């Protein structure tokens, strides 16, 4: 049976001139704004010129604005996925298609994901269809403790993926950095200090090539880290390691630190909160995977949030079970913990904020991504149910007020194999 798709893959993936932003209002919907508040029933979201004008009850829809009935639907800001590899790979184990790490490069901190990003990647399309509209993309530390410079991206079906280039640097400490640096945490801290000294000398125009640990490009790339213009994402898990990282600001007062991982963050939650350092974490890790994660628990996020730490759910990278599209499921699990005795979970509003407004704040887009506050970017998702429930999915996705195609390799396979009838022609003709 031959089926015509209205929006063929070619149209969806060829990136014709970007569509114009629509003015639209979704009415009669359950609206969650992403700011930590609980959902509002029978509410309206109004988007004009690619920006959110209003969200909530009592919103008047101006004449002439397209009105979408949201009865039985939920409307939210798009999910902001933290610390992903979206756009950097096609098939994990096919190294030619995989730009997540540059294991044989002479460069570390200077590596920049921007030229490698591919907005046509299937993982971008699959994540988009699941309601992910923005993400941060990192370069994985491999030969150097510095992975390179990550970007903030949008998942729109157009040629321009970058919302903010060179938004952060990633450095590996703990066991991971120790292994790279020479086998010990002692080495990784000296590496870090030497690198930042090189950056300071470059910034001051005093670089002595003979006495530099880093090549020029890597040193230059760290200048904005040293000054705090560029965030430093530090991969770290053990409580003692987290304390050491927080202590770096005694020496480098302008560092803009973000902890990535922080499996034992709850043990030092008060210190993290006092330092005002945000955390991006994989929230359901509860196993002693390594000796630096002995205290791992699913209550890690809840306890940190209770202590006043700003926590985003993220690092759901990789091609297996931890996909950005499952961020909502992970957030929902933290809501579930509210009903588990002695566990620390999140309210629904807190959990949803952990995949919308909080990651947006950490990415430097407070108030413009991950929220439906007035003036925010028109990244809007209409869902067929509670977005944190595993049975729910988006029915419409807007990025910058532009409605997005939800087709991808997976939906096309689904449509082809809806039946196994080959009585007229082989399956290969069903497209």
């Amino acid at each position, binding site marked *: 049976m031959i089926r015509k798709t209205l929006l063929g893959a070619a149209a969806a993936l060829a990136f014709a001139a970007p569509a114009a932003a629509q003015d639209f209002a979704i009415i009669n919907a359950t609206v969650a704004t992403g700011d930590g508040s609980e959902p509002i029933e029978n509410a309206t979201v109004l988007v004009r010129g690619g920006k959110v004008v209003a969200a909530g009850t009592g919103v008047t829809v101006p004449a002439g604005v397209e009105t979408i009935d949201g009865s039985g639907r939920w409307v939210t800001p798009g999910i902001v996925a933290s610390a992903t590899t979206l756009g950097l790979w096609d*098939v*994990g*184990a*096919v*190294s030619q298609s*995989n730009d997540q*790490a540059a*294991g044989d490069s002479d460069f570390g901190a200077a590596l920049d994901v921007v030229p490698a990003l591919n907005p046509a990647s*299937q993982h971008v399309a699959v994540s988009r269809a699941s309601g992910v509209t923005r993400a941060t993309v990192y370069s*994985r530390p491999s030969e150097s403790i510095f992975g390179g410079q990550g970007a903030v991206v949008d998942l729109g079906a157009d040629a321009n993926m970058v919302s903010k280039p060179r938004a952060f640097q990633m450095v*590996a400490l703990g066991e*991971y950095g120790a292994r790279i640096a020479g086998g010990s945490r002692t080495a990784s801290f000296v590496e870090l200090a030497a690198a930042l000294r090189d950056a300071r000398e470059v910034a001051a125009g005093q670089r002595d090539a003979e006495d530099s640990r880093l090549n020029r490009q890597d040193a230059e790339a760290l200048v904005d880290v040293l000054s705090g213009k560029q965030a430093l994402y530090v991969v770290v898990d053990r*409580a003692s390691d987290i304390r050491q990282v927080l202590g770096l600001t005694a020496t480098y007062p302008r560092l803009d630190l973000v902890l*990535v*991982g922080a499996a034992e963050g709850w*043990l030092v939650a008060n210190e993290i909160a006092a330092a005002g350092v945000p955390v991006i974490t994989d929230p*359901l*890790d*509860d*196993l*002693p*995977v*390594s*000796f630096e994660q*002995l*205290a*791992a*628990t*699913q*209550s890690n996020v809840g306890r940190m949030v209770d202590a006043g730490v700003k926590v985003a759910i993220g*690092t759901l*990278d*990789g*091609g*297996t*079970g*931890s996909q950005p*599209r*499952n961020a909502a*499921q992970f957030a*929902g*699990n933290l*809501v*579930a*913990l509210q*009903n*588990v*005795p*002695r*566990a620390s979970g999140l309210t629904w509003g807190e959990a949803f904020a952990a995949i919308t407004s909080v990651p947006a704040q950490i990415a430097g887009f407070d108030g413009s991504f991950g929220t439906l506050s007035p003036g925010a970017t028109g990244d809007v998702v209409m869902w067929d149910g509670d977005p944190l*429930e*595993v*049975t729910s*999915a988006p029915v419409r996705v807007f990025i910058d007020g532009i409605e997005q195609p939800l087709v991808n*390799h*997976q939906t096309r*396979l*689904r449509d082809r*194999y809806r039946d*196994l009838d080959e009585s007229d022609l082989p399956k290969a003709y069903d497209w």
Partner: protein
Amino acid sequence: MKRLRAITLLGGALALSACATTGGATGSSAETTTASSEAAGTPYASTYSAYPGVPTALVGATIYDGAGGVIENGTVLFRDGKVVEVGANLSTDGYTVLDGTGKFVTPGIIDIHSHLGDYPTPSVDAHSDGNEATSPTTPDVWAEHSVWPQDPGFSRALANGGITSLQILPGSANLVGGRSVTLKNVPARTVQGMKFPGAPYGMKMACGENPKRVYGSRGRMPSTRMGNFAVNRQTWLDAKAYAEGDRKKRDLAKETMAGVLDGDILVHNHCYRADEMALVMDMAKEMGYKVSAFHHAVESYKIGDLLRENDVCSAIWADWYGFKMESYDGIPENGALLWQAGACVVIHSDDENGIQRLNQEAAKAQAAGKRMGLDIPDAEVIGWITLNAAKAMGIDGMTGSLEAGKMADVVLWNGDPLSVYSRPEKVWVDGALMYDANDPKRRPVSDFELGQPGEGDVK
């Protein structure tokens, strides 16, 4: 943050890590009595027997029996380790009554594909015991001889996933990886103390990328998919010759293969691509054995008809895809399309985290079907992680559903098990309460965790 540092996506360690990427009650020790169901003389026999329990009536909950049935406001009765009766309005005389109003009851959840104990946490090199990757065919190795019963992962699977039985498979580096072992998820000092009494052995096989990559990279056969089949077929022919002889000369490898040919050992075949699964099913016909289940099987939806005709289950993830070439066509509708074709669906984990959420993964697979117009009843979906798994493991006569006479492997959920918001409240294995969310001490803490940060914490 193990994934960030993982090199699995770079391909190197793929086949050598996991398969895809590559409080007891007081009383007599359960480990000192040989279980009566083990034949005398069985090597490494199970020493597991049920811990004490009290006659229990779960009243007022929604009951999914695992066999496709659902009873609203029903009663489950169990005592002496066995399910006595399941129904509505049953007498609870002589039972300790637990109010299940607003809650749900399912059979104990079963994971058909786990590496707990063989790849335990901490995930250090010293614990990498799941792949005897020194020869493409190692039917002579037994997964149970690698199981570390102190793996903290068992307790997480119990408390968060409601897992009461699980199959531990060797990894997928080899064409024939060795024997699997089925365990009851009850802590023990020995693996014998966890072995599921009377469970048949499985034999792990793997097709596709892993064996040809692992051995091809060493300049030896197999280095291609055709090489995979050539080695497999010759191995089977040699095993058949052994099996047809007097079998007097002990040969551990051929004994395992002969056990498959005899129908006593069940084949669990790691395989991703539809075309390859079709070839494997023909190889099974050629050599005279049956594939019990294809594992991972991300392309099963392309051959649901063949799988139904050959009576082969697909043990699948809800949505994993893209991590290797042969997983590129994985889609979330895989399970639903198999169900539509009338083929057997099992949701598996292959992961120490995923095993804690098989119920959620099943719900995701169900929902993907619903969005394409396939309405699969909740009660059937529960079967994907209970009775269907038990069938493919050969233990469905003993567990997998709440039917009179079966093991009282039971989970009381605090809400709909197909919702992200629900967790196990109580888990019984053979009628013994092994986890209780309301009792801080009724949870296992492994030897490894004693005295460590987070000991006894909610996990």
